[in-house]
Protein backbone atom coordinates (compact mmCIF):
# COMPACT_ATOMS: atom_id res chain seq x y z
CA UNK A 1 0.00 0.00 0.00
CA UNK A 2 1.35 3.43 -0.84
CA UNK A 3 0.22 6.35 1.33
CA UNK A 4 0.67 9.83 -0.10
CA UNK A 5 -0.06 12.44 2.57
CA UNK A 6 1.85 15.61 3.35
CA UNK A 7 0.47 16.17 6.85
CA UNK A 8 2.88 14.28 9.16
CA UNK A 9 0.28 13.51 11.85
CA UNK A 10 -2.25 12.12 9.38
CA UNK A 11 0.44 10.20 7.51
CA UNK A 12 1.68 8.69 10.77
CA UNK A 13 -1.75 7.54 11.90
CA UNK A 14 -2.49 6.07 8.48
CA UNK A 15 0.79 4.16 8.48
CA UNK A 16 0.30 2.73 11.96
CA UNK A 17 -3.33 1.90 11.43
CA UNK A 18 -2.82 0.13 8.13
CA UNK A 19 0.19 -1.78 9.46
CA UNK A 20 -1.98 -3.00 12.32
CA UNK A 21 -4.25 -4.38 9.62
CA UNK A 22 -1.13 -6.15 8.28
CA UNK A 23 -0.96 -4.14 5.11
CA UNK A 24 2.60 -3.50 4.04
CA UNK A 25 2.89 0.25 3.84
CA UNK A 26 5.16 2.83 2.23
CA UNK A 27 4.50 6.50 2.84
CA UNK A 28 5.59 9.61 0.96
CA UNK A 29 4.75 13.29 1.34
CA UNK A 30 4.72 14.85 -2.13
CA UNK A 31 3.23 14.28 -5.55
CA UNK A 32 6.45 13.84 -7.54
CA UNK A 33 7.79 11.10 -5.25
CA UNK A 34 4.37 9.48 -5.21
CA UNK A 35 4.29 9.35 -8.99
CA UNK A 36 7.77 7.81 -9.14
CA UNK A 37 6.90 5.13 -6.58
CA UNK A 38 3.44 4.33 -7.88
CA UNK A 39 4.67 4.13 -11.48
CA UNK A 40 6.32 0.79 -10.59
CA UNK A 41 2.83 -0.67 -10.37
CA UNK A 42 3.95 -2.84 -7.47
CA UNK A 43 1.43 -1.54 -4.93
CA UNK A 44 -1.93 -3.12 -4.26
CA UNK A 45 -3.48 0.31 -3.83
CA UNK A 46 -2.55 3.97 -3.42
CA UNK A 47 -4.12 6.22 -0.78
CA UNK A 48 -3.62 9.65 -2.30
CA UNK A 49 -4.22 12.97 -0.57
CA UNK A 50 -5.52 15.69 -2.88
CA UNK A 51 -3.68 18.71 -1.48
CA UNK A 52 0.04 18.07 -1.85
CA UNK A 53 3.13 20.18 -2.34
CA UNK A 54 3.89 20.56 -6.04
CA UNK A 55 1.52 18.44 -8.08
CA UNK A 56 -1.86 17.94 -6.45
CA UNK A 57 -3.46 14.52 -6.08
CA UNK A 58 -5.80 15.00 -9.06
CA UNK A 59 -2.79 15.64 -11.31
CA UNK A 60 -0.81 12.72 -9.90
CA UNK A 61 -3.79 10.44 -10.46
CA UNK A 62 -4.29 11.61 -14.02
CA UNK A 63 -0.60 11.23 -14.85
CA UNK A 64 -0.47 7.71 -13.44
CA UNK A 65 -3.42 6.67 -15.58
CA UNK A 66 -1.79 8.28 -18.61
CA UNK A 67 1.28 6.14 -17.88
CA UNK A 68 -0.97 3.05 -17.86
CA UNK A 69 -0.54 2.47 -14.12
CA UNK A 70 -3.71 0.59 -13.17
CA UNK A 71 -3.18 0.34 -9.41
CA UNK A 72 -6.41 1.13 -7.53
CA UNK A 73 -6.30 4.70 -6.21
CA UNK A 74 -8.33 6.02 -3.28
CA UNK A 75 -8.33 9.79 -3.06
CA UNK A 76 -8.38 11.20 0.45
CA UNK A 77 -9.30 14.83 0.81
CA UNK A 78 -10.50 17.60 3.04
CA UNK A 79 -12.52 18.73 0.04
CA UNK A 80 -15.75 16.82 -0.18
CA UNK A 81 -18.14 18.63 -2.49
CA UNK A 82 -19.89 16.74 -5.28
CA UNK A 83 -17.72 18.63 -7.77
CA UNK A 84 -14.53 17.52 -5.97
CA UNK A 85 -15.59 13.90 -5.91
CA UNK A 86 -16.57 13.91 -9.58
CA UNK A 87 -13.30 15.65 -10.45
CA UNK A 88 -11.33 12.99 -8.58
CA UNK A 89 -13.14 10.05 -10.12
CA UNK A 90 -12.84 11.60 -13.59
CA UNK A 91 -9.10 11.94 -12.99
CA UNK A 92 -8.96 8.14 -12.77
CA UNK A 93 -9.41 7.47 -9.06
CA UNK A 94 -11.33 4.35 -8.06
CA UNK A 95 -12.71 5.77 -4.83
CA UNK A 96 -12.92 9.04 -2.88
CA UNK A 97 -13.07 9.49 0.88
CA UNK A 98 -13.48 12.81 2.68
CA UNK A 99 -11.57 13.78 5.82
CA UNK A 100 -12.19 13.29 8.64
CA UNK A 101 -12.99 9.63 8.05
CA UNK A 102 -13.67 6.55 10.14
CA UNK A 103 -10.58 4.38 9.96
CA UNK A 104 -12.67 1.26 9.78
CA UNK A 105 -14.35 2.65 6.64
CA UNK A 106 -11.01 3.42 5.02
CA UNK A 107 -9.83 -0.13 5.67
CA UNK A 108 -13.09 -1.59 4.33
CA UNK A 109 -12.81 0.50 1.17
CA UNK A 110 -9.19 -0.55 0.67
CA UNK A 111 -10.14 -4.20 1.10
CA UNK A 112 -12.88 -3.77 -1.47
CA UNK A 113 -10.49 -2.08 -3.89
CA UNK A 114 -7.79 -4.70 -3.50
CA UNK A 115 -10.34 -7.53 -3.78
CA UNK A 116 -11.73 -5.96 -6.92
CA UNK A 117 -8.14 -5.70 -8.12
CA UNK A 118 -7.28 -4.37 -11.50
CA UNK A 119 -9.56 -6.47 -13.64
CA UNK A 120 -11.13 -3.47 -15.34
CA UNK A 121 -7.72 -2.31 -16.45
CA UNK A 122 -6.12 -5.63 -17.27
CA UNK A 123 -6.01 -7.80 -20.31
CA UNK A 124 -8.79 -10.36 -20.28
CA UNK A 125 -6.49 -13.42 -20.44
CA UNK A 126 -3.56 -14.25 -18.19
CA UNK A 127 -1.37 -17.08 -19.39
CA UNK A 128 1.71 -19.09 -18.54
CA UNK A 129 2.73 -21.92 -20.85
CA UNK A 130 -0.20 -24.34 -21.23
CA UNK A 131 -2.18 -22.43 -18.61
CA UNK A 132 -4.75 -19.78 -19.54
CA UNK A 133 -7.02 -17.83 -17.22
CA UNK A 134 -9.88 -15.88 -18.79
CA UNK A 135 -10.73 -13.18 -16.31
CA UNK A 136 -14.05 -12.02 -17.70
CA UNK A 137 -15.44 -15.50 -18.33
CA UNK A 138 -13.95 -17.02 -15.15
CA UNK A 139 -12.61 -19.93 -17.18
CA UNK A 140 -9.27 -21.72 -16.75
CA UNK A 141 -7.81 -23.92 -19.45
CA UNK A 142 -4.79 -26.22 -19.48
CA UNK A 143 -3.69 -27.10 -23.01
CA UNK A 144 -7.09 -25.89 -24.16
CA UNK A 145 -9.09 -28.11 -21.82
CA UNK A 146 -11.34 -26.40 -19.28
CA UNK A 147 -10.44 -27.00 -15.63
CA UNK A 148 -13.22 -26.49 -13.09
CA UNK A 149 -12.05 -24.36 -10.18
CA UNK A 150 -13.91 -22.98 -7.19
CA UNK A 151 -14.16 -19.20 -6.90
CA UNK A 152 -11.45 -19.22 -4.24
CA UNK A 153 -9.09 -21.32 -6.33
CA UNK A 154 -9.76 -19.07 -9.31
CA UNK A 155 -8.89 -15.93 -7.32
CA UNK A 156 -5.74 -17.61 -6.00
CA UNK A 157 -4.52 -18.58 -9.47
CA UNK A 158 -5.52 -15.21 -10.91
CA UNK A 159 -3.41 -13.39 -8.37
CA UNK A 160 -0.41 -15.70 -8.84
CA UNK A 161 -0.58 -15.25 -12.62
CA UNK A 162 -1.02 -11.53 -12.27
CA UNK A 163 2.14 -11.42 -10.14
CA UNK A 164 3.98 -13.95 -12.34
CA UNK A 165 7.76 -13.89 -11.85
CA UNK A 166 7.41 -12.30 -8.41
CA UNK A 167 7.48 -13.95 -5.01
CA UNK A 168 4.01 -13.86 -3.48
CA UNK A 169 3.95 -14.37 0.27
CA UNK A 170 1.31 -16.44 2.03
CA UNK A 171 0.08 -13.33 3.84
CA UNK A 172 -0.29 -11.45 0.57
CA UNK A 173 -2.23 -14.29 -0.97
CA UNK A 174 -4.47 -14.58 2.07
CA UNK A 175 -5.24 -10.88 1.98
CA UNK A 176 -6.03 -10.87 -1.72
CA UNK A 177 -8.00 -14.06 -1.86
CA UNK A 178 -9.89 -14.01 1.43
CA UNK A 179 -9.99 -10.26 1.82
CA UNK A 180 -8.70 -10.21 5.33
CA UNK A 181 -5.24 -9.93 6.67
CA UNK A 182 -4.67 -11.14 10.18
CA UNK A 183 -7.22 -13.66 11.24
CA UNK A 184 -6.75 -16.22 8.50
CA UNK A 185 -4.17 -18.87 9.45
CA UNK A 186 -1.50 -19.15 6.77
CA UNK A 187 -1.89 -22.91 6.34
CA UNK A 188 -5.20 -22.38 4.55
CA UNK A 189 -3.17 -20.86 1.72
CA UNK A 190 -1.03 -24.01 1.54
CA UNK A 191 -4.15 -26.19 1.53
CA UNK A 192 -5.74 -24.25 -1.33
CA UNK A 193 -2.51 -24.19 -3.34
CA UNK A 194 -2.43 -27.95 -2.94
CA UNK A 195 -6.03 -28.22 -4.26
CA UNK A 196 -5.12 -25.94 -7.14
CA UNK A 197 -2.05 -27.93 -8.16
CA UNK A 198 -4.03 -31.15 -8.22
CA UNK A 199 -6.74 -29.65 -10.41
CA UNK A 200 -4.20 -28.13 -12.80
CA UNK A 201 -2.55 -31.52 -13.34
CA UNK A 202 0.79 -31.23 -15.14
CA UNK A 203 0.50 -27.41 -15.11
CA UNK A 204 0.35 -27.50 -11.32
CA UNK A 205 4.14 -27.61 -11.18
CA UNK A 206 4.18 -24.03 -12.49
CA UNK A 207 3.08 -22.93 -9.01
CA UNK A 208 6.38 -23.25 -7.18
CA UNK A 209 6.87 -23.16 -3.44
CA UNK A 210 9.50 -20.78 -2.13
CA UNK A 211 10.31 -22.47 1.13
CA UNK A 212 9.33 -20.51 4.21
CA UNK A 213 8.13 -17.53 2.18
CA UNK A 214 5.34 -18.23 -0.27
CA UNK A 215 4.80 -19.05 -3.92
CA UNK A 216 5.78 -17.94 -7.38
CA UNK A 217 4.76 -18.67 -10.95
CA UNK A 218 7.62 -18.41 -13.43
CA UNK A 219 7.23 -18.50 -17.18
CA UNK A 220 10.80 -19.83 -17.36
CA UNK A 221 9.58 -23.03 -15.72
CA UNK A 222 7.50 -23.89 -18.78
CA UNK A 223 9.36 -26.83 -20.26
Amino acid at each position, binding site marked *: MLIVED*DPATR*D*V*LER*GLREELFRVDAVADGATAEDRAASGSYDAVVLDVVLPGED*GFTVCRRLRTRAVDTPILLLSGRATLQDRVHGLDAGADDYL*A*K*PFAFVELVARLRALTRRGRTHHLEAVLSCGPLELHQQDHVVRVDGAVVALTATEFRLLEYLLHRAEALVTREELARHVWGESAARPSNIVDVYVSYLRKKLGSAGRLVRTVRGLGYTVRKGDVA
Partner: protein
Amino acid sequence: MKRGEGRSAVEVFADAAVHALRTPLAAVSGEVELALRRERSPEAYRDALARIGQCVAELIDLTADLAILGSSTDVAGVSRGASRLGAVLGSIVGDDAGAGTVIEGGAAGVDVDVIGDQAFLARSLRLLLQHATRHVPPGGRVTLRVERVLHDRVELTLTASPPLVGQTWRHLREDSDESGDVNAAGLLRLGTAARIVEHCGGAIRVDNGEAAGSVRITLRRVPAEAHGA
Protein backbone atom coordinates in the same frame (compact mmCIF):
# COMPACT_ATOMS: atom_id res chain seq x y z
CA MET B 1 -11.53 40.76 1.47
CA LYS B 2 -10.07 41.14 -1.99
CA ARG B 3 -8.59 37.72 -2.36
CA GLY B 4 -10.78 35.26 -4.21
CA GLU B 5 -13.17 37.60 -5.94
CA GLY B 6 -13.92 34.75 -8.42
CA ARG B 7 -16.13 33.33 -5.71
CA SER B 8 -17.66 35.25 -2.87
CA ALA B 9 -15.19 36.11 -0.13
CA VAL B 10 -17.31 34.17 2.34
CA GLU B 11 -17.20 31.06 0.18
CA VAL B 12 -13.44 31.24 -0.21
CA PHE B 13 -12.94 31.82 3.50
CA ALA B 14 -15.31 29.02 4.53
CA ASP B 15 -13.73 26.62 2.05
CA ALA B 16 -10.25 27.36 3.35
CA ALA B 17 -11.40 27.00 6.94
CA VAL B 18 -13.19 23.70 6.37
CA HIS B 19 -10.28 22.21 4.52
CA ALA B 20 -7.68 23.39 7.00
CA LEU B 21 -9.62 22.00 9.95
CA ARG B 22 -10.41 18.64 8.37
CA THR B 23 -6.83 17.40 8.19
CA PRO B 24 -5.96 17.71 11.91
CA LEU B 25 -9.46 16.45 12.73
CA ALA B 26 -8.73 13.37 10.61
CA ALA B 27 -5.53 12.80 12.58
CA VAL B 28 -7.34 13.20 15.93
CA SER B 29 -10.21 10.89 15.01
CA GLY B 30 -7.76 8.35 13.60
CA GLU B 31 -5.69 8.38 16.78
CA VAL B 32 -8.78 7.91 18.96
CA GLU B 33 -10.10 5.10 16.78
CA LEU B 34 -6.76 3.28 16.76
CA ALA B 35 -6.30 3.68 20.51
CA LEU B 36 -9.72 2.20 21.22
CA ARG B 37 -9.52 -0.61 18.71
CA ARG B 38 -7.71 -2.98 21.06
CA GLU B 39 -6.18 -3.21 24.53
CA ARG B 40 -2.86 -1.40 24.69
CA SER B 41 -0.16 -0.74 27.24
CA PRO B 42 -0.30 2.39 29.44
CA GLU B 43 2.71 3.74 27.51
CA ALA B 44 0.90 3.28 24.21
CA TYR B 45 -2.13 5.18 25.56
CA ARG B 46 0.15 7.97 26.82
CA ASP B 47 1.82 8.20 23.40
CA ALA B 48 -1.57 8.36 21.73
CA LEU B 49 -2.70 11.13 24.08
CA ALA B 50 0.50 13.07 23.39
CA ARG B 51 -0.11 12.85 19.64
CA ILE B 52 -3.73 13.88 20.09
CA GLY B 53 -2.50 16.82 22.19
CA GLN B 54 -0.27 17.97 19.33
CA CYS B 55 -3.18 17.81 16.90
CA VAL B 56 -5.38 19.77 19.31
CA ALA B 57 -2.64 22.42 19.63
CA GLU B 58 -2.63 22.67 15.85
CA LEU B 59 -6.41 23.09 15.86
CA ILE B 60 -6.09 25.85 18.45
CA ASP B 61 -3.54 27.64 16.26
CA LEU B 62 -5.83 27.24 13.26
CA THR B 63 -8.81 28.72 15.05
CA ALA B 64 -6.63 31.67 16.10
CA ASP B 65 -5.60 32.08 12.45
CA LEU B 66 -9.23 31.98 11.37
CA ALA B 67 -10.12 34.67 13.89
CA ILE B 68 -7.37 36.88 12.45
CA LEU B 69 -8.28 36.18 8.84
CA GLY B 70 -12.01 36.50 9.45
CA SER B 71 -11.91 40.12 10.54
CA SER B 72 -10.55 43.19 8.79
CA THR B 73 -9.90 44.81 12.15
CA ASP B 74 -7.27 43.76 14.63
CA VAL B 75 -9.60 41.90 17.00
CA ALA B 76 -6.85 39.58 18.20
CA GLY B 77 -4.53 42.42 19.18
CA VAL B 78 -1.69 41.35 16.92
CA SER B 79 -0.42 44.92 16.61
CA ARG B 80 -0.39 45.45 20.36
CA GLY B 81 2.97 46.47 21.73
CA ALA B 82 6.44 46.17 20.30
CA SER B 83 8.80 43.26 19.84
CA ARG B 84 12.53 42.95 19.59
CA LEU B 85 13.14 41.54 16.11
CA GLY B 86 16.00 39.38 17.39
CA ALA B 87 13.60 37.75 19.85
CA VAL B 88 11.01 37.14 17.14
CA LEU B 89 13.58 35.45 14.91
CA GLY B 90 15.07 33.56 17.83
CA SER B 91 11.70 32.07 18.69
CA ILE B 92 11.34 30.44 15.29
CA VAL B 93 14.87 29.07 14.97
CA GLY B 94 15.28 25.32 14.98
CA ASP B 95 12.78 22.59 14.34
CA ASP B 96 9.95 25.02 14.85
CA ALA B 97 10.80 26.65 11.53
CA GLY B 98 10.96 23.37 9.66
CA ALA B 99 13.78 21.19 8.41
CA GLY B 100 16.19 22.83 5.97
CA THR B 101 15.40 26.33 7.18
CA VAL B 102 18.12 28.89 7.72
CA ILE B 103 17.53 32.19 9.46
CA GLU B 104 20.20 34.80 8.73
CA GLY B 105 20.76 38.30 9.98
CA GLY B 106 19.47 37.73 13.45
CA ALA B 107 22.31 39.91 14.71
CA ALA B 108 21.14 42.80 12.53
CA GLY B 109 17.72 42.56 14.10
CA VAL B 110 18.80 42.08 17.68
CA ASP B 111 18.46 45.73 18.71
CA VAL B 112 15.57 46.66 16.47
CA ASP B 113 12.05 47.03 17.85
CA VAL B 114 9.16 46.42 15.48
CA ILE B 115 5.46 47.03 15.91
CA GLY B 116 3.46 43.97 16.88
CA ASP B 117 3.07 41.21 19.40
CA GLN B 118 6.05 38.85 19.39
CA ALA B 119 4.01 35.66 19.31
CA PHE B 120 1.86 36.84 16.41
CA LEU B 121 4.82 38.14 14.40
CA ALA B 122 6.57 34.82 14.95
CA ARG B 123 3.39 33.03 13.86
CA SER B 124 3.32 35.05 10.64
CA LEU B 125 6.95 34.26 9.78
CA ARG B 126 6.50 30.63 10.79
CA LEU B 127 3.49 30.27 8.45
CA LEU B 128 5.55 31.68 5.57
CA LEU B 129 8.45 29.34 6.36
CA GLN B 130 6.15 26.36 6.68
CA HIS B 131 4.62 27.17 3.32
CA ALA B 132 8.07 27.45 1.71
CA THR B 133 9.54 24.30 3.30
CA ARG B 134 6.42 22.41 2.23
CA HIS B 135 7.16 23.29 -1.40
CA VAL B 136 10.94 22.89 -1.64
CA PRO B 137 12.07 19.47 -2.86
CA PRO B 138 13.83 17.12 -0.41
CA GLY B 139 17.29 18.49 0.37
CA GLY B 140 16.25 22.03 -0.57
CA ARG B 141 16.81 25.01 1.65
CA VAL B 142 14.70 27.94 2.77
CA THR B 143 16.38 31.12 3.99
CA LEU B 144 14.86 33.99 5.91
CA ARG B 145 17.26 36.91 5.88
CA VAL B 146 17.20 40.37 7.45
CA GLU B 147 17.92 42.31 4.27
CA ARG B 148 17.86 45.95 5.34
CA VAL B 149 17.34 47.89 8.53
CA LEU B 150 16.04 51.38 7.70
CA HIS B 151 15.00 54.18 10.00
CA ASP B 152 11.29 53.38 9.77
CA ARG B 153 11.19 49.77 8.73
CA VAL B 154 13.01 46.46 8.47
CA GLU B 155 12.99 44.38 5.32
CA LEU B 156 13.32 40.62 5.42
CA THR B 157 13.58 38.32 2.43
CA LEU B 158 12.46 34.73 2.23
CA THR B 159 14.14 32.74 -0.55
CA ALA B 160 14.46 29.09 -1.40
CA SER B 161 17.07 26.94 -3.04
CA PRO B 162 16.15 25.71 -5.57
CA PRO B 163 13.95 28.79 -6.15
CA LEU B 164 10.23 28.39 -5.70
CA VAL B 165 8.10 29.38 -8.63
CA GLY B 166 5.99 32.50 -8.20
CA GLN B 167 2.87 30.35 -8.34
CA THR B 168 3.76 28.96 -4.92
CA TRP B 169 2.91 32.34 -3.46
CA ARG B 170 -0.17 33.05 -5.53
CA HIS B 171 -2.32 33.40 -2.44
CA LEU B 172 -0.32 36.48 -1.44
CA ARG B 173 -1.43 38.26 -4.57
CA GLU B 174 -4.46 40.46 -4.18
CA ASP B 175 -5.71 39.55 -7.65
CA SER B 176 -5.45 35.78 -7.23
CA ASP B 177 -8.54 33.79 -8.07
CA GLU B 178 -9.05 30.63 -6.05
CA SER B 179 -11.98 29.28 -8.03
CA GLY B 180 -11.45 25.54 -8.27
CA ASP B 181 -8.15 25.82 -6.43
CA VAL B 182 -7.49 22.68 -4.42
CA ASN B 183 -5.02 24.37 -2.11
CA ALA B 184 -7.35 26.27 0.18
CA ALA B 185 -4.96 25.53 3.05
CA GLY B 186 -2.31 27.64 1.31
CA LEU B 187 -4.77 30.49 1.13
CA LEU B 188 -5.39 30.26 4.87
CA ARG B 189 -1.70 30.00 5.75
CA LEU B 190 -0.52 32.86 3.56
CA GLY B 191 -3.61 34.98 4.12
CA THR B 192 -3.10 34.81 7.87
CA ALA B 193 0.61 35.63 7.59
CA ALA B 194 -0.17 38.65 5.43
CA ARG B 195 -3.00 39.84 7.66
CA ILE B 196 -0.82 39.79 10.80
CA VAL B 197 1.92 41.82 9.14
CA GLU B 198 -0.60 44.25 7.63
CA HIS B 199 -2.23 44.82 11.03
CA CYS B 200 1.22 45.78 12.30
CA GLY B 201 1.64 48.37 9.54
CA GLY B 202 3.87 46.21 7.37
CA ALA B 203 3.45 44.34 4.12
CA ILE B 204 4.34 41.09 2.37
CA ARG B 205 5.08 41.18 -1.32
CA VAL B 206 6.05 38.56 -3.88
CA ASP B 207 9.19 39.46 -5.84
CA ASN B 208 8.73 38.92 -9.56
CA GLY B 209 12.27 39.90 -10.45
CA GLU B 210 15.28 37.69 -10.96
CA ALA B 211 14.71 35.90 -7.67
CA ALA B 212 11.30 34.71 -8.84
CA GLY B 213 9.17 33.39 -6.07
CA SER B 214 11.03 35.11 -3.26
CA VAL B 215 9.01 37.02 -0.71
CA ARG B 216 9.78 40.38 0.86
CA ILE B 217 8.43 41.07 4.33
CA THR B 218 8.41 44.64 5.57
CA LEU B 219 7.96 45.21 9.29
CA ARG B 220 7.33 48.67 10.68
CA ARG B 221 9.83 49.89 13.27
CA VAL B 222 8.68 51.47 16.49
CA PRO B 223 9.04 55.28 16.03
CA ALA B 224 12.08 56.79 17.72
CA GLU B 225 9.95 59.06 19.95
CA ALA B 226 8.20 56.01 21.32
CA HIS B 227 11.58 54.73 22.47
CA GLY B 228 12.25 58.01 24.22
CA ALA B 229 8.86 58.00 25.93
